[in-house]
């Protein structure tokens, strides 16, 4: 119950801030939409006409996933960095719930609050291009949940690094492109890439949304890889975060910007 209250408080805060600073939220969404339009125009103008439809569908899925990855993984770093400089991070660090639980609640709340925006962006993109993808919720849901767990792990690694280093804004800028690479890469280039976070999840989502693959058609092995990645990256992320928190407490960095 206490964990639910914690999650509820963070969802509410996120929603209030997003609503209160609507122009800022809108600017972020518009920027993302412009990036998409640029990709779309690129495919239309210089892409191979024979594979144009497939490329556009590919871009829609990838760019929506990129937005999701940015919201989940990148945003937590910005949040901690900002809160450390504002002075609120030390208050969070003093919660008897434990800072890692608060950070996980933040990651989940970011995902939930931004989900509506993601769905809206998806439909706007499909309407803009005229390419209507297969939205099979039953098939997409387990893939998304498992992929998100691995993203949360990645988010906790970024959060841990921010707790120690604080001023990692330059790294967060680079991280946007690392996330883009993970989203856009195809595992048939290098098979071991399926064990990288996000890669396998996006691949399966592409199969569902572009090729119309259903839940029963997805191999058990694919789900095992997805499940392994989810558990592995979440545990590693949590371990790194807790280590960083303790390191920061030893060195006096927890409440220091």
């Amino acid at each position: 119950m206490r964990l639910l209250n914690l999650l509820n408080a963070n969802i509410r805060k996120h929603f209030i801030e997003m609503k209160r600073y609507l122009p800022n939220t809108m600017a972020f969404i518009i920027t993302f939409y412009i990036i998409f339009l640029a990709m779309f125009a690129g495919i239309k103008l210089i892409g191979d006409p024979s594979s144009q439809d497939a490329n556009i569908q590919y871009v829609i899925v990838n760019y929506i996933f990129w937005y999701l990855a940015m919201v989940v993984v990148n945003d937590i770093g910005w949040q901690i960095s900002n809160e450390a400089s504002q002075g609120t991070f030390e208050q969070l660090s003093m919660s008897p719930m434990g800072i890692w639980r608060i950070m996980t609640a933040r990651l989940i709340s970011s995902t939930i609050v931004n989900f509506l925006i993601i769905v809206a962006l998806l439909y706007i993109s499909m309407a803009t291009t005229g390419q209507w993808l297969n939205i099979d919720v039953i098939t997409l849901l387990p893939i998304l949940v498992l992929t998100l767990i691995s993203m949360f792990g990645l988010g906790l690694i970024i959060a841990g690094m921010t707790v120690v280093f604080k001023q990692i804004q330059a790294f967060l800028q680079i991280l946007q492109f690392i996330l883009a690479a993970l989203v856009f890469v195809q595992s048939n280039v290098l098979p071991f890439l399926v064990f990288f976070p996000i890669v396998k999840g996006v691949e399966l989502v592409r199969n569902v949304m572009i090729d119309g693959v259903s839940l029963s058609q997805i191999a058990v092995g694919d789900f095992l890889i997805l499940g392994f990645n989810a558990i592995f990256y979440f545990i590693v992320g949590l371990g790194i975060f807790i280590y960083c928190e303790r390191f920061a407490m030893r060195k006096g960095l927890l409440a220091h910007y």
Partner: protein
Amino acid sequence: MEAIIKVEGVKKAYKKRKSKEVIQAINDVSFDVKRGEILGLLGPNGAGKTTTIKMICGLLTPDEGSITINGNDMKTQRLKALKHISAVLEGNRNLYWRLTVKENLEYFAGNRGVSRKDAAFLIQDLLHKFNLKHKENELVNRLSRGMQQKLAIAIAMSAETDVILLDEPTLGLDVETSYEVRSILQSIVKEYNRTIIISSHDMDVIQDICERTVIINNGNIVINDSVKNLLKLFEVRSYSITLGGFLSNHQLSLISHKFPHHTYKKETFQSILEIDLAKSEEIYQIIDILKMDETPVEAIDRRNVNFEQIFMKIIKGEKSNAFAQSS
């Protein structure tokens, strides 16, 4: 009364990033805080006060020693210990400026696992208590500094912890708000039976509301005594001697040699010698020096010292290794 906070043999050293020089911030500090007590934690800048506060709050791990809050060790049972302590460490900086007063209270309650419904009654009570009810839907960035400070204390109160730690609770406040905050703090102890630790440079606040003070200097505790005792102790030894003339150079050099803690002011027809004595009997030595040149004595008064002067004496005494040791 039982001790709710026990600080035992705590040490903390920092290594400077560039020179790798080790700075001993806290050196073997031990003290207790009793339930329902208001303790003043004092010290000049760089004395080790903030390091001590951060260790009590669980934001910093000691190199040696232990800190227990209500029987829970801060190192091994950190989350359990944190259930018993809340803090206002940077005043208005501890708030979310984009949220309203009520939203801040609700969010921090949620972060401790309390639902909005369960916190609602307490939040309303605190809004009234802190005179913030009329501002409950106001964004924090639109509040005055005093109101922000009161909100930060209200948030610490909303955690319903046994101990509340306040770092500079009256810093930057006007006189009226400072008095309001003081009276709120006193009522917190009386009505809610909370234990409060205050760190402040405002000695009036310490003298006004603290029962006991722990003074830290150079990483060590130099005084751990009640405010009443300290006032009494220093009052006895501070004298103001009004002379119907002026001291000769010889007399002045003798006084300077024997009593380094003195001030001498010349006026038109008289002069005033203010002097701190380690022992009351030393007054006879002063009389002997005055007798040498038959300097007329018009009055000998025991000075009323305030807590700020006492603090300065203790800190100076620590440095010169004289006053603090003799007291």
